[in-house]
């Protein structure tokens, strides 16, 4: 079984205690939904990168500390490069985790 490091429990815990919760760092648009086009709104709601490679995503330690956190996981190898607390930005690229994705904004957030 894969072990995932929970940044709140500060230890590696078995994979089945966790639940995947979609792509991370999707900013909610600043504009009111009523002032946005359907296209802009659907972009925020539904469109995701579905990246092949290092992917920033949310995870939930559902059967543990019950906290959501973020992780960068390689979608090809299923290897977790880093996990970090909610509200933190992905750690800067280093020798061990080169080219991490940066936080990004979606349509309507301009």
């Amino acid at each position, binding site marked *: *079984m894969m072990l995932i490091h929970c940044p*709140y429990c500060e230890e590696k815990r078995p994979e*089945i*205690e966790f639940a995947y919760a979609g792509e991370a760092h999707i900013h909610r648009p600043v504009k009111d939904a009523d002032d946005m086009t359907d296209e802009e709104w659907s972009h925020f709601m539904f469109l995701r990168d579905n990246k092949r490679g290092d992917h920033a995503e949310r995870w939930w330690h559902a059967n543990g*500390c*019950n906290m959501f956190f973020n992780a960068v996981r390689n979608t090809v190898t299923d290897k977790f490069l880093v996990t970090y607390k909610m509200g933190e930005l992905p750690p800067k690229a280093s020798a061990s985790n080169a080219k991490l994705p940066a936080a990004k904004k979606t349509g309507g957030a301009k």
Partner: protein
Amino acid sequence: MLFNQAIEIDESLNDDVMRLSLSGERVRYSLRLKPADVAAAKKSSGLKLPAKIGGTSIAAGQTILCLGPQEWLIVALPKSREKLAGTMAKLSADYICSAVEVSHRNLQFTVTGPGAARALNAACPLDLSVDAFPVGKGTRTIFEGAPIVLWRTAEHEFTVEVWRSFAPYLRDFLAKTAKDRHMA
């Protein structure tokens, strides 16, 4: 199942390798505080709230586990019912917090014997070696399909809190996996 109704434990769950027993009635509270209030709330309530996730404070008649950031489970003997209710009412009045009585949500089992860790590991994926899960450590985790709260009180002694409706499942699972524990 009524809150004070014991569930039957078959004799097959009581041998030299492992013994499962049902604890008596307990009073339980789920407590959540804001980070900034923890120190003051600890002082005014007198509750020994462990600071670190996975930490426990085990005293005669009352165990407190830190399950998540600023989240605690308090499990006490029924004789503390009034006192705890008063403590929680005062916390609720003094702070913006969540202090919920959940006494009847769980049943409590103890799992003892040299095969206790092995028995639990049939359903719980945590590393329960003493190095990784020492005496005094406690956590929310999973027992096959059932969420549980588990803590270690001695090398060969664990306490399990499980939702009442899952208790027969936990018992039956331990009965069904008995053969595995007896293999060296």
